[in-house]
């Protein structure tokens, strides 16, 4: 088990991603953030806080639960718990930045894209993640990455965030034993 990113560097990564989002989109016009439950939602909130400090105004923020769009729903033995999706603004013609903690196989993002399209037709969707650990199974890539962490397939990447885990922020890589 090793700590890969500590609290300070998570903060710096989020600050950098926020600047990159604004730079790439040339400001905050038509921009909105959608975090994937649970830790993606927390990160989206932090990015939004950062953008508010830079631009003076926060972006519309939504929370997406992708459970119902998972491609393995018929394979699991009991149904995963469904949480609420909260997107109370119209996403049509908006530039959406999807936020998640770890980018791995890409299947979560595939589900999130399908879910978003059911809400409307955004003008573009970009992806921001705190950690990209590789091993993609779908043709998906991130536009903004906090840190690339090369891993082997049987390692676990745990993102710990104060809001959800009641512990100090950190990213840990654990070896062996798929969770």
């Amino acid at each position, binding site marked *: 088990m090793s700590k890969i990113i500590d609290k300070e560097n998570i903060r710096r990564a989020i600050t950098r991603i926020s600047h990159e989002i604004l730079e790439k989109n040339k400001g905050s016009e038509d921009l909105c953030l959608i975090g994937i439950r649970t830790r993606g939602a927390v990160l989206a909130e932090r990015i939004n806080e950062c953008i508010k400090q830079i631009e003076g105004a926060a972006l519309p923020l939504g929370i997406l*639960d992708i*459970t*119902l*769009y998972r491609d393995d*729903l*018929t394979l*699991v*033995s*009991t*149904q995963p*718990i*469904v*949480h*609420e*999706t*909260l997107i109370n603004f119209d996403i049509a013609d908006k530039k959406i930045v999807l936020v998640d903690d770890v980018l791995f196989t890409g299947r979560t993002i595939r589900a999130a894209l*399908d*879910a978003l399209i*059911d*809400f*409307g037709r955004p003008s573009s969707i970009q992806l921001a993640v705190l950690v990209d650990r590789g091993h993609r199974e779908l043709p998906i890539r991130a536009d903004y990455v906090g840190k690339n962490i090369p891993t082997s397939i049987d390692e676990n990447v745990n993102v710990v965030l104060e809001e959800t885990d009641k512990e100090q922020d950190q990213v840990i890589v654990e070896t062996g034993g798929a969770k």
Partner: protein
Amino acid sequence: MSEWIKHDLLDLQNLSKEEIELILETAKSFKEVSSRDVKKVPALRGKTVVMLFFENSTRTRMSFELAAKRLSADTINIAISSSSLSKGETILDTARNIEAMNVDAIIVRHPTAGVPKILSENLGPSIINAGDGCRSHPTQALLDMFTIKEKLGKIEGLEVGIVGDIAHSRVARSNICGLNKLGAKVTVCGPATLIPSDIEKLGVKVSHDVDEIIKNSDVIMLLRIQKERQEDKFLPSIREYAKVFGINKNRLKNAKKDLLIMHPGPTNRGVELSAEVADGEYSVILDQVTNGVAVRMAILYLLLGTKEIKTEEVS
């Protein structure tokens, strides 16, 4: 939160408090789906749900059908009058034929208590009870509890009055069971001829004074006076019932400020409640209908996800 392992939904007796709470919590997430422009999620794509209704129904059948469709399941309605049952086939044979076409769930309503249980003991698909005789109507009770929780924030400790024909009401029986499990205090109220003599055994108080119920309750559930049963002479007349037990605006003067008036429908305006009350500030009758779809979506989602081998189930 607990995990869902049940294969069928037959009644609330064999659900734990945690399982009921899981259904209500899951329903909360599904309510949002029905408020979208595209009211559909792919969770049950490829599943087939059959509705086998041996009694008339508007709300329940449509609610189940919408719930299944919004989860992307395929639905089939079997109208009993035009089916082989009218040619003398037994229920079990009909159901076995339905099973042979590889369906995933059968939603059944039948005038005889116990039919859903018999089907569940003999068939592989998930069986969902949409009302059996005077015994049980679990999805109605669940949507009632969901509505109470949504409006009042809790169920534990609430005073709930159920007024009307308790004797013939599966809605009352299921609600008594569920509300007791979640810690509400239930009082039933109605004419003595429509309250079973040993109803206290279910853990309820009995009252014959509807004004007392209005004064003390946080929630009042009204039940339909089943006019079709009037030949049995349970009541001197509908008019007398309306006078003694009907709820009108005048009577509600003594009610608590955030009282909920509920009714499973169909309502007899002017009998159980006046039109003013049905459309009035306390009424959540249409919220119940909206919530019914969310609760049934939650049930279908939870039931059709389990893969346990049926023979292991005891209940």
